[in-house]
């Protein structure tokens, strides 16, 4: 397997957290950038709030007699 012997040189206790950490940080920053630069991710996270936040219909008012 290609690079299979790298762990004879790189300590697994250093290399594996480094790789996983780099992936985690990269992934988090990309998703955070998408969250802060688009409207549809936050809208999705809001759930049904888009419809719930719609202004409530005003109650019908009886016509005023003159």
């Amino acid at each position, binding site marked *: *397997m290609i*690079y*299979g*012997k*790298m*762990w*004879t*040189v*790189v*300590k*697994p206790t250093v290399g*594996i957290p480094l*790789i996983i950490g780099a992936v985690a940080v990269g992934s988090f920053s990309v998703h955070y950038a998408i969250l802060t630069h688009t409207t*549809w*991710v936050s809208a*999705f996270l809001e759930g049904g709030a888009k419809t719930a936040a719609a202004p409530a219909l005003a109650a019908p008012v009886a016509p005023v007699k003159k």
Partner: protein
Amino acid sequence: MSDGKVSLTGLNDEQSEELHRNLIQGTQFFGMIAALAHLLAYIYSPWLK
């Protein structure tokens, strides 16, 4: 090194290759799940549309 001698990290070639196999397999599993999640995100969101 494969004849029982230890390396810089204390692992021999077989141990290193076994660890690497598992790491690659885990990466492939993670990648598959991530690809599926991105496909669903592409289908159900305005992403790239």
